[in-house]
């Protein structure tokens, strides 16, 4: 209730500023204008088209990052030479913003989906690698020994002990990876100038001073991000980590 109130206050303040006539309406459109644009874009399906393209790129990049990150993370945790080889590389590449690679990837792979997906991949893979690696090393050694003395070997040890034990870290990594990917995709779409996508719509709208289109797309981007963050990752956490009792066990 209180939350609603403060949002209403913010909207009213915005509306007053928009109507006061200090700024051009093209730059600061009123809320009904934004709502109308949003509705029109939703109704003719163009917004859905953009959203689907963006989501496709995010999930392609994220899936790639998750598979590489999980494999590399587990290998780094298990084998010392792998760790000492990849850790310096990972720490050197991590501070480079993924979008700095955008021009290079565009040159190498052309404008469009490949470059965008690779940028998303670059952004999302570091949290995956680091968290999987940390998680696999943070598995309680007592559990490993207990499982070992009960005769668990190789595969069983990995799937029944290491993976569930590392899962809280891995889920956190996935969540961070999604946040990074979501930021990266918007930027990549602006730079890699593919013909569809939420980031591209916003950037393209600048050319025509369509601030209402920008704000409408911004609302959709915020809503999708919110849905994934809260609903998808929240329920993922509930069905895996909480159910396996990992979080409670970690706290105890």
């Amino acid at each position, binding site marked *: 209730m209180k939350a609603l109130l403060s949002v209403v*206050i913010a909207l009213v303040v915005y509306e007053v500023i928009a109507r006061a006539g200090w700024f051009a309406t093209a730059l600061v459109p009123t809320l009904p204008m934004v709502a109308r644009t949003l509705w029109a874009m939703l109704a003719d399906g163009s917004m859905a088209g953009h959203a689907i393209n963006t989501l496709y790129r995010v999930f392609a990049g994220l899936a790639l990052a998750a598979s590489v990150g999980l494999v590399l993370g587990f290998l780094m945790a298990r084998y010392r030479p792998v760790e000492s080889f990849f850790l310096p590389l990972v720490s*050197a590449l991590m501070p480079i913003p993924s979008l700095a690679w955008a*021009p290079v990837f565009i040159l190498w792979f052309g404008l469009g989906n490949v470059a965008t997906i690779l940028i998303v991949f670059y952004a999302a893979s570091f949290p995956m690698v680091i968290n999987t690696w940390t998680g696999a090393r943070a598995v309680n050694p007592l559990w490993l020994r207990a499982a070992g003395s009960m005769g668990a070997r190789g595969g069983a040890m990995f799937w029944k002990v290491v993976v569930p034990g590392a899962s809280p870290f891995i889920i956190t990594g996935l969540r961070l990876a999604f946040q990074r990917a*979501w930021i990266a995709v918007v*930027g990549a779409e602006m730079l890699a100038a593919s013909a569809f996508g939420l*980031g591209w719509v916003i950037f393209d709208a600048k050319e025509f001073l369509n601030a209402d289109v920008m704000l409408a797309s911004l609302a959709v981007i915020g809503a999708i991000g919110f849905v994934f963050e809260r609903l998808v990752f929240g329920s993922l956490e509930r069905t895996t980590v909480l159910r396996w009792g990992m979080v409670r066990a970690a706290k105890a």
Partner: protein
Amino acid sequence: MFASSFVRAAFPFAVVAAIWELVAHSGAFPPRLFPPLEEIGATLARLTVQGILPHHAAETVFRLAFGFAIAAALGVLVGILMGRYRRAEDLLLPLVSIGAPIPGLAYAPLFLLWFGLGDTGSIVLVAFVSMFPVIINSWTGVKAVKEIWLRAAQTMGADERRLFRYVILPGALPYILTGCRLGLAQAWRILVAVEMLAAVPWGLGWLIFGAREFLNTDAMLAGIAVIAVIGLALEKFVFQRLERYTVVRWGMVAA
């Protein structure tokens, strides 16, 4: 000991560099797109000597420092107010939680429209985007100060100002610093991208993006190398040090 660990850390880079050289010299890709390392090195040296690269880097660091300083000052202030006063929390928390998950770059075109291309637009955007983690962490930090410390200080007669200076601020500082660290990392990522979009005349992001027009892959990769060095330096020299001098020394984090 030091030498051996240095060799061990350098080894993977040597392997990657060797692979890069092999691919670059094999002729599988045009050298304009996939320049060998010596060419990138030569470009790096040439641009540095000519003063072009330092100028780009200086502009970028200036924008980063300026934008982040605004974000840190405002963010800590807002976060502490939210943690201390119920009213402020009720009013601002919903807005912060709506604004925080929207990717910062999505605001970029809007901010460029509102504040213009160039320095103002990019600095305001960097400040706005990196403010969120600072606010959220400062707020959490103030909330996380142990009730018992507050009460102990109050029974010993601390007034509001002393309570703040000697209890709340040190207590919340680990969180505030984490927030600043996250904020700076965020600012850094956004800044490089926004320099590409905002058509500023100088800046590393612009250097990389502008080089694309002329197929100067060597200049791009040299720019990326400088970006990596600055990013690492920020992490190693700014934050780890700051943490050592304040939080660790005050005994807030188990050293």
